[in-house]
């Protein structure tokens, strides 16, 4: 049985260049692109969710623009899923930390200068926002305490540093309970680390080709990993066993996101296709093709309390933000 998703809204030309990364908080969607500004869109309005009209006037208004955040563009952005803390990293190499004020607007809190080239690539944050992890060009995974990063920091102290075999760290995620960190690498390696012991828990094989996305399931039990192998491998985080492989993409998989119940996995690929997979049935239940342009990032939004259906958003080389939700009555 397939599901149907409707494109409910599009923000065309949300950025003047490719959108590379998305982050969500309970009330906001944050988008980062090759241009210097990071944009914040409000998703918490909730009033339009029941409205089936796709012509609703901008249900995702721009809440804030973080002007000139990264002069050469911003390639990764991540937020604490509970909100309050945001981190971004730009092509110039700097990591910026942003804190939400009482009026929910973001202000720069601290910056780790990227003096060593290739020191910061992919980012992830623990759900409450205390820990920030960043991959490096030579395969290390650095863990920082966000409370210690205030003002401009030249050489930020890492709490922990996970070492791997030196292959470029393309992607990273922190488990929702904060106990594990997973990293994906250029050479196809995927590792799970135990955050409390600082040791590697599992070295997961199977993808061989560059890994471009890793994502923990909401209940911490599974890790999804995907990339140029065009398949999604799902591992049990306790045993390290590969549980299943989801096949169907015909191009490199660039991005993964679990919905908040863990029932559905969303993937975006280089050829512009977004797929929704039922984890229970281990199959693709919907495919959305918006354009043939690369989807650099796909993300489920937080479900508003009064909303009937969950929504997700896709972004990439089209420079637009496209919002989808499940069609009613299927």
């Amino acid at each position, binding site marked *: 049985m397939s599901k149907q998703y409707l494109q409910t809204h599009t923000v065309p030309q949300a950025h003047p260049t490719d959108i590379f990364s998305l982050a969500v908080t309970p009330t906001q969607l944050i988008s980062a692109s090759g241009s210097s500004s990071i944009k914040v869109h409000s998703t918490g309005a909730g009033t339009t969710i029941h409205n089936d009209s796709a012509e609703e006037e901008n249900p995702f208004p721009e809440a804030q623009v973080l002007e000139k955040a990264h002069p050469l*563009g911003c390639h990764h952005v991540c937020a604490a899923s509970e909100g309050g803390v945001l981190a971004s990293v730009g092509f110039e190499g700097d990591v910026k930390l942003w804190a939400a004020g009482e009026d929910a607007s973001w202000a720069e809190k601290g910056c780790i200068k990227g003096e060593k080239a*290739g020191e910061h690539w992919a980012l992830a944050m623990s759900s409450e926002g205390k820990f920030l992890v960043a991959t490096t060009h030579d395969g290390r995974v650095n863990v920082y305490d966000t409370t210690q990063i205030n003002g401009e920091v030249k050489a930020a102290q890492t709490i922990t540093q996970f070492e791997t075999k030196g292959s470029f760290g393309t992607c990273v995620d922190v488990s929702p309970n904060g106990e594990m960190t997973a990293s994906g690498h250029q050479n196809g390696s995927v590792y799970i680390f135990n955050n409390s012991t600082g040791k590697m828990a599992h070295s997961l094989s199977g993808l061989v080709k560059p890994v471009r996305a890793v994502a923990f399931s909401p209940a911490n039990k599974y890790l999804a990993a995907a990339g140029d192998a065009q398949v999604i491998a799902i591992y049990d985080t306790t045993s390290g066993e590969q549980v299943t492989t989801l096949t169907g993409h015909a*191009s490199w998989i660039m991005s993964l996101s679990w919905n908040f119940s863990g029932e559905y996995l969303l993937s975006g690929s280089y050829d512009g296709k977004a797929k929704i997979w039922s984890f229970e049935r281990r199959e693709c239940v919907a495919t959305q093709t918006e354009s043939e342009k690369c989807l650099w990032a796909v993300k489920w939004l937080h479900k508003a309390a009064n909303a009937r259906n969950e929504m997700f958003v896709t972004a990439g080389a089209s420079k637009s933000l496209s919002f989808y939700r499940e069609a009613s009555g299927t």
Partner: protein
Amino acid sequence: MAQELAEASTVFDEKSDASDPETPYTRIEPSIRSLVARPPGGNAIDTAIQGTVISKIESIFEAMVDVLLKERGQLFLVLTSRPGLQIPQGIVIDTASPSRHAQHICFPGRDENEAWRLAVVTRILELIHEAVRNNITISKRDIYYRDPALFGRQSNVDKYVDTIACTFGVPRSALQVTAAAKGLVAGALSFCRRNGDVVDVSGDIEGILVPNMNDILSINVTRVEWILVIEKEATFRSIAASNAWKTLSTHGVMITAKGYPDIATRSMLSLLSNPSPRNGFRSPPVHGMMDFDPDGIAIYSTYKHGSKCTAHEPDELQLPQMKWLGLSCDHMLRNADSCAEQGLLTLSLRDRKKAQKMLEWKALANEDDLQTSLRSMLMLNLKGELQILDAVPDGMSNLLRCGLPKREVPWV
């Protein structure tokens, strides 16, 4: 003392007081031996050597300024050359290291001849410094034409360039100087030389070396509908040998400078594509075909805007109408399966640094597509070489057919 010098690979020494010949030479430059001893190949090392070349040249100039400011004292440039290489007069045989010949040039010069030799060396060093700084390649011919009155003969330039390279202990290429024009050109054009000879390039399917512009009176491009600029000689040769070229060569021109373009090749392109009485006021479109990597984009930018440091200045050799034909991210994706094994490469740390630096280049400030390409490379951590197209059947000819202007079929 001489032995000491040789061991330290010292190339330049300052005599603190000319009246005291026993005063030890003060070594100004640290030894570059460690650098030379590193394994060859690898661009990071090239960059390091170029950095050394720049700092060596600058320290020589600084020392000269010091001598001038002090108004006394002398300075000796010690130039060495390999045996067998003929050096202009004034050789001092360094008995301690018989494998090398050393030549001392005193500053200020002691006679007219020495002053001239010093001027020649200084001028060449200045041009090399400029070339290395701006990352452009110049030929020995280029150097000669920058100041023919001073150099007198081409052979003087040739000798001193090689001597400087030997003295610095680096290959000549590290000075960004090539032996002669390095460009190749092929296709439907002919030149008229100043002496009246007509050179028909289309007669030579393999292409000819780019001639010296000063020898060219005019150029016949009436049949040329487009110009294709190619990064690499290998691709140039591969296209020249292809079946597609048999058709394309009747109305197109292909040119390569084998990497970063030299002035001769850029002058030729400018003459071909900028309307002037010398080319019959034609302006055929120019398309670039480069690797999908930071150097490919930098090379393209050098053709189009000049070297990055001079890009903001007017440059008669610029080609603002030039367009990027390939490779693009899409070419790589389309061939992702077939080229995954060959041609698709991971960016090195040097590539990543270079791409990052290039995002700041003024020359690329208005080149949105190139910036997008640079960011895509960084995001994907991948680069692709033109050879990818060889992995796909008809890959190159398809790209040329789709990318080049459609032929206007003459009305019959």
